[in-house]
């Protein structure tokens, strides 16, 4: 299978995007943590103030998946800010369905993302990877990525809604 296209996601793609999000979460062993719905994706990605940008990989109908899907990969990203170097492109999710790997789709997605980053004056592209996910870490390191958690000691923290609400009512 050599033909595929990469294009900007459209509102009609939200059902496929959610399907792929869940597949990736399943691979990351955290599928039960996905509470996002198609409605959220529509509102948050295609409304007045998009919170994310998305690119999808599409194959021709003759190469559709066993379940009849032609959208076989996606990347979701947005712009963030580093007070030291300015604008960054943050890669939130990046996934290609298992049976479509090895055809250069992932590499092409990454290339398009980095072109977008350079074109929009971003100094860097950041993302997170689980430390046990050796195939992905190797994929990125082969292409020149640096692990800031190992090299500089950065740890990711979260504060969930309950504690956020508590904090927001503090003086």
């Amino acid at each position: 299978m050599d033909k595929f296209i990469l294009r900007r996601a459209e509102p009609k793609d939200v059902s496929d995007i959610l399907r792929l999000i869940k597949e990736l979460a399943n691979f990351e062993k955290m599928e039960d943590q996905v509470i996002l719905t198609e409605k959220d994706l529509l509102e948050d990605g295609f409304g007045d103030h998009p919170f994310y940008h998305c690119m999808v990989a599409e194959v021709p109908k003759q190469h559709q998946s066993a379940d009849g899907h032609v959208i076989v990969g996606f990347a979701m990203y947005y712009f963030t800010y580093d007070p030291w170097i300015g604008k960054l492109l943050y890669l939130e999710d990046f996934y290609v369905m298992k049976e479509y790997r090895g055809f250069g789709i992932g590499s092409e997605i990454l290339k398009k993302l980095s072109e977008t980053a350079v074109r929009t004056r971003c100094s860097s592209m950041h993302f997170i990877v689980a430390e046990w996910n050796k195939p992905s870490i190797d994929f990125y390191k082969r292409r020149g990525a640096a692990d800031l958690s190992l090299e500089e000691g950065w740890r990711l923290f979260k504060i969930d809604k309950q504690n956020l609400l508590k904090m927001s009512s503090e003086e």
Partner: protein
Amino acid sequence: MKFTICPAKPEDCKDIERMIMELAVYEKMPDQVKISHKELERDGFGPNPFYQCVVAEVPEEHMSKDGHTKVGYALFFYTYSTWKGRTVFMEDLYVMPEYRGKGIGKALMATVAKVAKEQHCVRLQFSVLDWNKPSLDFYLAKGAEDLTAKEGWHFLRFHGIALDNLAQEAP
């Protein structure tokens, strides 16, 4: 001591630049700061701001020995979790050493939490250096969870030449 927390204005960027450098010195990485107040003004106050910032100010009678009344800041932006939806990422939180212990850090963070709540964000994320015990204690006391320790997430990046190389890779 009395203080106010207000959204940053373009004229605050020189103070924010000063405090960004102070924080970078504390994080032992001052040589990594490449942008100035000019980029901060352009990127935070144009038609499409890449970050939001709130600043803590004390009355003139409490100004610092160098004559500053802007004594702390929090810089943050919206991000998107494919699992949970809208989130806020707090990129920087800083209070000048001589103004700590007066509730300013807590108030800055409460302001960010309030904004997150108003924008229907479900989570606040941020990163902390693994040796930064005072900050780790501050955040853990507020209910923060270390996702690097708990789930193994590492920060990776494509920066500078690595990003350029990626953008130029043949498909």
